[in-house]
């Protein structure tokens, strides 16, 4: 069984073939890395998977059932939660509320529930709060639960984004450059958190520039260059791949 399968994914922007026949498959319970030089098509790939762009061609399967990331709301409901390259939180809301918003897609309270606060509505609200606390504790930011999101330190904002995504109960947690802008110590802590998330049974897909982090925690990788897959496999095999070395160390216009 594979969690997410992508077959022959392509996307063109004007004259640029941003993603060119990319295929990959992510197994349940692994951390999968998507790396490549700038302009390789990682983020486009990511946005295709999360429904922000529509693919020109290609097939997706989530949990072995065909899946078409048509719009962003449905992608989250189907079980893919994402974080953003530049942190995007609900700034004026509290940290706890940010995570509670993450529960939105798994809860049902509507207008009548809000107004009447009947028993089931109260139960659901209590459960939302409880689970939000759970994810705050899991990501280590529970002490700041009542801060405004924008008042958090940068590293904690990143964690909050992950907590909010986890609250949607995703099958696949997709992280867009989670270590961007972090210092070395924060990166180590992030690596530990991501491994803890995997050990709790989740599957992760991450785009990342930091080669050390990616090589350290990813179970498998796909390397993109110019929109094409140039290598995929375990970090060890990718590291020694001739194409990858050429793409990174020059001999290539994008290098």
């Amino acid at each position, binding site marked *: 069984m594979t969690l997410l399968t992508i077959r022959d994914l392509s996307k063109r922007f004007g004259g640029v073939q941003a993603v060119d026949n990319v295929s990959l498959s992510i197994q349940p319970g692994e951390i999968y890395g998507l790396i490549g030089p700038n302009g390789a098509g990682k983020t486009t790939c990511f946005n295709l998977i999360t429904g922000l762009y529509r693919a020109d061609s290609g097939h997706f399967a989530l949990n072995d059932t065909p899946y078409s990331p048509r719009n962003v709301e449905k992608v989250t409901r189907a079980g893919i939660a994402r974080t953003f390259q530049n942190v995007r939180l609900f700034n004026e*809301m*509290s940290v706890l509320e940010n995570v509670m918003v*993450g529960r939105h897609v798994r809860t049902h309270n*509507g*207008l009548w529930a*809000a107004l009447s606060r009947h028993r089931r509505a109260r139960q659901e*609200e209590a459960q939302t709060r409880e689970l939000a606390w759970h994810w705050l504790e899991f990501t280590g930011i529970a002490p700041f639960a009542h801060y405004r999101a924008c008042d958090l330190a940068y590293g904690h904002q990143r964690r909050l984004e992950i907590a909010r995504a986890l609250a949607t109960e995703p099958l696949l947690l997709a992280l867009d450059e989670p270590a961007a802008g972090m210092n070395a110590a924060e990166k180590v802590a992030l690596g530990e958190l991501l491994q803890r998330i995997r050990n709790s049974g989740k599957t992760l897909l991450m785009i990342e520039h930091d080669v050390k982090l990616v090589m350290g925690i990813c179970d498998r990788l796909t390397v993109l260059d110019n929109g094409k897959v140039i290598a995929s496999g375990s970090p060890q095999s990718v590291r020694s791949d001739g194409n990858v070395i050429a793409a990174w160390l020059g001999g290539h216009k994008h290098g």
Partner: protein
Amino acid sequence: MTTSLLHTAAPSSRRLHAGLALFIIAVIIAPMVAGSVGGNYWVRIIDLALLYIMLALGLNIVVGFTGLLDMGFIAFYAVGAYLAALLASPHLLSAYPLLQVWLPEGLHTSYWLIVPAAALLSALCGILLGAPTLKLRGDYLAIVTLGFGEIIRILMRNLDRPINITNGAKGISGVDTLSLFGVKFSGVQHLFGLKIPSLWLWYYLLVLMIVLIIAICLRLQHSRVGRAWHAIREDEDVARAMGIHVRNYKLLAFAMGASFGGVAGALFAAFQGFVSPESFTLQESIAVLAMVVLGGMGHIPGVILGAVLLTGLPELLRSQAVPVQQALFGSVLIDPEILRQLFYGLALVLVMLLRPAGLWPARHTEVKV
């Protein structure tokens, strides 16, 4: 911006209760005090201020909670007011005498029916306005809603030809006065052996309505729905990525806000006994928006403060500007109306410069770790 979580219970609960009790007493005796100090004129002003509070609370759902800049909110007030005027005045029967065959006693629809109908119809108009504007943000949304407000006003003004529905610029007069449980809200009523001016009755009724609206707003705010609205206000794209159905929640905000406006409008028609397009100008929309922004967007006590200040202060100015100027300069140098507009603009500019989040914004207190 505001949540129960971010509020601290800083004052001890006993002080809070004492304060609340004082506030309730003040609210109860306010019309008596105002009536004995300034006469019925001031009670009337307070009643109008209460109507504006209802409007501001409705607009707050759209602008404050959901972050949709609506510059045509008064249109929903107009819809409610005209609905009441049409269903409870002699206008339709005098325009179409044929109807008298079916309605020999005239058209006097009960307000128990009119008020919910006004809420529903306004909510529907809210959705009609919301649907085409879903993709618009910020200034663009403001312009479209502004246009919508003007369209409603111009419709009311011109729907007297070819068939006379709204009686055009002349407006509709003779709207039935409110009567609840056999008590008429006009003249002086004898209740429990007391003589109570109808303006007081209106006051208490409107306060009750506002309490109800506040309860609804608070419950909405601290719910899954309220969080979804806040999320949309903070970042629409991310809200969508969280699985929030942005379209539905925006429409819900428009509908909820509009329904409060419609109820206020129906009560306004009954209160005045007369409606005309001149009550629903762009300036009124801007005034209600200013109450929300000046008071503190999204913060219910702030919005109420804004509404009280922006209806109360101009009236104070209107009544005091002439005597004060005569005492100071011996003559009236500046017309009170001009002075009013001057101060209005000045107040807005000052608030935006000094307190951009409003006079009474939601408090954010951080919990010490």
